């Protein structure tokens, strides 16, 4: 059984500067408050479209992206707001996108499930489950052929491991030794279907044996553990020993999509995971360090919430796109 921590030992923090640790904390809080703010705007009727949120899964996005350089790339999914923020997209460009404005990261043409910013190393997310996996292999192929030292981290969920695209995409990366990190965020559910119903495997990382690559399952709510595993995988990829399959065990604190009340999640299971909230885990450990206290962490949250509210108000009041935008950018 993979060990799931109930506390991050403060010794684990010693290798890192407070600045680095506080940055990880702030990034996770930003994701949480962004998602909570968006959820509220949505339920209020202010925001159009649909949302698939990642509250509870902040450590996977932040931990992996912290191990990447700006010119490394990620691929993401319909549940991609956390990946986008962790890779460096701003709340502003994402809120603008969610309101369908041309000031959005995809000029209002993509929406929630297609967040991306090429300059920040994120291709527009792929909303078809598993669809981004072969693409990630192709991106890594380009890096290898062009002889850059870039790597790609490919995010997907437990549900995606059933798709043919998972098999084919990882096969290609494996046979060509491509610099790709395949990151499976196993939050125990593919939509409402529990993971033990879709596989006989105890660990999804055991799929790595089918491809002859290294696979590892770890606690996806321990952001430092995730960071370290990702950094190891990035090193391997940059030195030509990729790809790697990482399975990060985590949990969704919110519905699959809007208006999902999660009646299919057992209450003991929810209790267990909510007690292991990734932000609280790091927060408790941080407060054992000299010079960091609860008000300071609260302050981080308050600043982010205030910034969110301002940006949301501004986004809501942006002008609608011009009708001519309907037919632009079909072709390059």
């Amino acid at each position, binding site marked *: 059984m993979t060990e799931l921590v109930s506390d991050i030992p403060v010794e684990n923090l010693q290798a890192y500067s407070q600045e680095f640790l506080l940055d990880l904390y702030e990034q996770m809080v930003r994701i949480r408050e962004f998602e909570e703010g968006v959820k509220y705007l949505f339920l209020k009727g202010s925001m159009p479209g649909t949302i698939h949120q990642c509250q509870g899964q902040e450590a996977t996005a932040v931990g992996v992206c912290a191990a990447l350089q700006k010119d490394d790339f990620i691929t993401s999914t319909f549940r991609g707001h956390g990946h986008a923020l962790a890779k460096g997209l701003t709340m502003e460009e994402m809120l603008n996108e969610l309101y369908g404005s041309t000031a959005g990261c995809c000029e209002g043409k993509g929406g929630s499930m297609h967040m991306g910013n090429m300059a920040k190393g994120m291709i*527009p997310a792929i909303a078809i489950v598993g*669809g981004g996996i072969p693409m990630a292999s192709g*991106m890594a*192929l*380009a890096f290898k*052929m062009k002889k850059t030292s870039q790597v790609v981290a490919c995010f997907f969920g437990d549900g995606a491991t059933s798709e043919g695209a998972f098999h084919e995409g990882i096969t*290609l990366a494996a046979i060509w030794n491509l610099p790709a990190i395949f990151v499976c965020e196993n939050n125990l559910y593919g939509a409402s279907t529990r993971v033990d119903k879709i596989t006989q495997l105890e660990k999804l990382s055991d799929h790595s044996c089918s491809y002859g690559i290294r696979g590892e399952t770890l606690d996806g709510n321990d952001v430092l553990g995730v960071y370290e595993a990702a950094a190891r995988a990035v090193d391997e990829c940059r030195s030509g020993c990729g790809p790697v399959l990482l399975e990060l065990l985590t949990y969704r604190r919110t519905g699959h999509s809007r208006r999902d009340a999660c009646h299919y999640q057992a209450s003991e299971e929810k209790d267990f995971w909510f007690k292991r909230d990734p932000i609280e885990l790091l927060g408790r450990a941080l407060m054992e360090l000299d010079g960091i206290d609860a008000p300071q962490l609260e302050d981080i949250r308050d600043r982010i919430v205030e910034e969110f509210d301002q940006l949301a108000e501004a986004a809501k009041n942006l002008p609608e796109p011009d009708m001519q935008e309907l037919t632009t950018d079909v072709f390059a």
Partner: protein
Amino acid sequence: MAVGQTTKRLSIAESLREAITEEMRRDKSVFCIGEDIGVPGGWGGAFTVTLGLEEEFSDRLLDTPIAELGFFGAAIGAAMMGMRPIADVQYGDFLFLPMDQIVNNAAKMCYMSGGAVKVPLVMRAPIGATGRGSQHAQSMERYFIGVPGLKVVAVSNAYDAKGILKAAVRDDNPVLMFEHKLLYGSKGARAESGAVDATSEIPDEDYAVALDKAKVNREGSQVTILGWLLMHHYAMHAAETLAEEGIDAEVIDVRSLSPFDYETIGESVKKTGRVVIVEEGPITGGVSAELAAGIMERFGESMLAPVKRVASPDVPVPFSPVLENAYRPDPPRIVEAVKNIIQY
């Protein structure tokens, strides 16, 4: 072609091979990805197009496992990172496997990114009925012409094949290029029974052919016959038969299936007032249906007769040679269709 320019006669397989070679020499970001395309001592793909290229380009002919969804997706990802891949399926019928990647990813990426991403990807597919049974015989252009963001072309001769492939490689958008198994002119063990001569004089100089243009290959005044791939060749044969009977047909190779070249087609239609569209593939829901509707909308006032389509019956491709021949439209059926509307 300029006077004094040297040329050589090449088949489609040979001219495609030249195009690929020249583009890979010109631009290091061009590479090929597909099954059995670069195996040393191998076939150069199922229709010999990449035969021998692995000697010069072993690092840029990527042989893949049998994983079309995977390697088309990979080609898309590589294109988004600045490479210029040429991905091929061994038979067009296999395009249905990477359909999600082509339609949901390649075609939509530029639009849904607000123009931030381009996908300079070429995809190649051999099509047509050739005695191999229903799953290696289809003409599947119809499924791709209605995909916004995807360009679709079809090459009927060696000159166009080379020029259009070059244009496709140089284009920054996904281009799906259909070729016909009976037109490759492959030799030896890979020769196809029933093959039609699609060779052309190929100039030594570099040239490209526009992706979005149809071509008038026979001028005429009484009827416009539109076709592509093998059917264009049959239309040309039919025009000779019609000429002997005093009917003057203008024959156009449609070449660009998405978008259609309504400028060239329109000039012809306004001149003749009569249109026959010939297509290999079931008559229902084919490319001809879209082309017919488009012609009527734009040039309806010039029409002297309703648009006539010659296509296959609505059946999967049968194996038995007699039945397969009945499935495939042929010059006599085109002649009959023209005669049907010439007196309208």
